[in-house]
C-alpha cells in the first residue's frame, strides 16, 4: 500500500461547503484521531476517505453502523469477509454457515462479550452490543485501513478500551473520529482537529494534552 493522500478535497451538501479545501496525507502504520465538535465535518471527511480509498482495502465503520437488523450477529460479522469467498459459498453460508467461518468469528465475539448473542438478530440488540458487532465485522474484514466514525460512542469503561485495542491490533493504519479526547490521545499517534471543515490542528498525540484540544470545541 502506498501512502494515502487527499489533496484539495472539498465536499458540499445542499449547496453549502461542508469541508475543504484541505490536504491530508496518511502514512502507513499511522493511527489518526479526527476530533472536533459535532457538525465540524468529521463524518463527511470519513465518507470522502472511504470513497477514495475503498479500492485500497478500506474498512468502514459508520456512525449508524450499517448493520442488517434482520440478520444474525454471526452473519453481520461474516459480511466483513464477503469479498474473500465465492458467491455460492456466501449464499450457502446465509442458510448454513461453515465451521471454519464460525471458528474464525466466535473468538472475536467472545473477546467482545457477545458470543451468547451469536445467533440473535442484530435488530434485537442494544446500542452497545450492536456497536461491538460492527467492530467485529470491521476486524473480520481484514482490510488495510480502518475508517471508523465514533467506534466506541455507546461503550463505556473497560469494554471501550478492549474494542479500541482489538481494532488497533487488526488495523495498524486507521482514522478514528472520536469525541472522547482522553481515549483519542491514548490510542492514536496523531490528532487531526477539524473546525469549520478545515484542519485546525495536526499534531503528534504525545505532544498534546486534553486541554490543548479545548480550542476546537
Amino acid at each position, binding site marked *: 500500500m502506498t501512502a494515502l493522500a487527499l489533496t484539495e478535497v472539498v465536499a458540499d451538501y445542499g449547496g453549502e461547503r461542508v469541508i475543504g479545501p484541505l490536504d491530508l496525507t496518511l502514512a502507513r502504520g499511522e493511527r489518526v484521531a479526527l476530533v472536533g465538535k459535532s457538525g465540524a465535518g468529521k463524518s463527511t471527511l470519513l465518507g470522502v476517505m*472511504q470513497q477514495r480509498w*475503498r*479500492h485500497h*482495502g*478500506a*474498512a*468502514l*465503520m*459508520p456512525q*449508524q*453502523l*450499517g*448493520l*442488517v*437488523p*434482520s*440478520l444474525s450477529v454471526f*452473519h453481520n460479522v461474516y*459480511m*466483513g*469477509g*464477503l*469479498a*474473500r*469467498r*465465492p*458467491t455460492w459459498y*456466501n*449464499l450457502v453460508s*446465509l442458510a448454513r454457515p461453515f465451521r471454519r467461518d464460525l471458528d474464525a468469528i466466535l473468538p472475536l465475539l467472545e473477546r467482545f462479550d457477545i458470543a451468547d448473542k451469536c445467533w440473535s438478530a442484530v435488530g434485537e440488540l442494544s446500542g452497545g452490543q450492536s456497536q461491538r458487532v460492527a467492530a467485529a*465485522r470491521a476486524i473480520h*474484514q481484514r*482490510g488495510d485501513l480502518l475508517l471508523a466514525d465514533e467506534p466506541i460512542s455507546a461503550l463505556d469503561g473497560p469494554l471501550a478500551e478492549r474494542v479500541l485495542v482489538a481494532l488497533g491490533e487488526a488495523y495498524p493504519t486507521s482514522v478514528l473520529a472520536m469525541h472522547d479526547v482522553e481515549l483519542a490521545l491514548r490510542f492514536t499517534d496523531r490528532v487531526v482537529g477539524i473546525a469549520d471543515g478545515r484542519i485546525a490542528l495536526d499534531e503528534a498525540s504525545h505532544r498534546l494534552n486534553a486541554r490543548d484540544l479545548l480550542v476546537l470545541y
Partner: protein
Amino acid sequence: MWHSATVRTSLGFVALAIACLLVADFQISAHDPWAELGRLFLGLAQPNFSAVDYLGEAIVRTLAFAFVGVGLGAAAGLLLALVFHHRAVRTTCAFIRAIHELFWALIFLQFFGLHPLTGVLAIAIPYAGIFAKVYAEILDESDPQPAQVIPHGTGVVSALAYTRFSQAWPHLATYTAYRLECGLRSSAVLGFVGMPTLGFYLESSFAQGQYTTVGALLLLFYALIATLRLWARPRLLPFYLLAAPFLLGEGLPIRWQSVSRFFTEDIVPEPLRQGEGLAGLMPWLGDLLANEALPGIWNTLLLTQIALVATGLLTLMLYPLVSQHFTGRHAAGRVRGALGHGVLVILRSTPEYLLAFILLQLWGPSMLPAVVALAIHNGGIIGHLVGQRSNAITLRADAPRGIERYAFELTPRLYGPFLALLFYRWEIIMRETAILGILGIATLGFYVDSAIQEIRFDRAMVLIVITALLNIGVDILARHLRNRLRLRHTASCEP
C-alpha cells in the same frame, strides 16, 4: 370540516355514485330470490361431504394451480424488481397486471386449450407484474448503508443477498404469503373458465341444484384459507412448490398449430385478414368502439363508482368489529374480536367473482349482485386493514365510548389511511368490475366474452387492451388523488 379537501373529495365520490345509481340497472329479476338464498344457506348448514374424491380433487387442483402460478409469478417478479427502474420494465409490468387473470385465461385457452399451462400462466403473468412493483418498492425502502460498508470486491449477488434482500426479507415474505392467499382465490375462480379447480365444481353443482355440495365446497375453501397460516409453513413451502407441478392434472394436449394460428390469424383484425387494408380497418374499429367498447366502458365506470362507494361505506361499518377499541381487550373482548375476525375472514376470502356468481344465480342478472359482491369482498379486506390500524392508536383514559368514540375519536383519525387503502383498491375494483361482465353484466368483460364466444378474437383483443388502459388510467388518477390529499401509504399495505 366541510372545507377539508378530504371531505370534499369523499362527498364528490358519494354524489357521483348516487348519480350513477339513478341510471344503473338494479332490478331483481329472479323468480323467487329469497327461497334460492334460503336453499343456499341450508346447503351451507347441511354440507354434503360424501363425494370425497370429487371434493379432494377440487381442493388439490386449486392448491396446485395457486402454488405453481404464484411461485412462478414471484420468481419472475423478483427478477423484474431488480430492473424495475427501467421505464420499459415499469410500463410492461403495469400493462400485464392491468389485465385480469380470467382475461389471461381466456387468451391462453385459445392457444393452449384446456392444458394446465393455461391456468398456470393466467396466474403467473399478472402476478409477476404485481410482485415486480411491490417487491421493487419494498427493496427501495431498505437502508442503503449496509451496502456501502461491505468490502470492495464483493460479488453483486452476494451483496444483494446479504444487504437488500436480507433487510427486506420479512416484508417480502409477508407480502408473498398474502399473495398466496390471493392466488388461492384466483385459482378457485379459474374453474369458471374450465380449469379443473374449485370454481369448475362449484359451477356444475350449482347448475345441477346440488346446494349441499355447494355448501361443502364453500366451507372447505374457507377452511383452507382460514388455516393458511397453519399449513403454509416456511419449511414446508419447498415441498409444496416441488409437488404442485405434478398435481395440476393432465388436461388436454396442446395443439401447436392453434398457437401459431392465434398469432397469424386469430388476433389479426378482420379487415386486414381479408386484405381490405387500412381503409377497412377504420370502419371496423369505429363500429367496435361505438357498439361495444363505449357501452362497456360506460357500464364499467358506472358499476365501479357505485361499488367503490359501497365498499367505503361497508368498510366504515365493519372496521369496529376487529378494533380493540370497540371489542375490548379482556377475555370477553378477545372472544368478540375473534368473532369479528371470523366474519371479516369469510367476507374477504370469498372471491368477488364467486360471490357475484352466487348472487346472480339468486337474484338474476343486473348490477345489484355485482355491487354487493364487490362491496362485501373489498369491504372485508379494507375493514380488516383499517381495524388493524386502529389498534395502533392509543386513546386517552377518559375517551368517550360507543358511537361517540366511533364518530369523534377513531373515524377521523383513521379516515386518511382508509381513503388511501380505498384508492388503492379502486383499480382492483375496476379490474374486477370488468371481469364480472363474463357473468352477463354488460361491463367490458361481457363484450370480451361475447367476442370470444363468436370466435372473433381480434375484437376480443382490442377490448382487452382497452380494459387494461382503463385500469392504468384509474391507477394514475388514484395515485394523483393520494398525492393531492397527501395520503400516506406504504408498499406492504397494498393488496
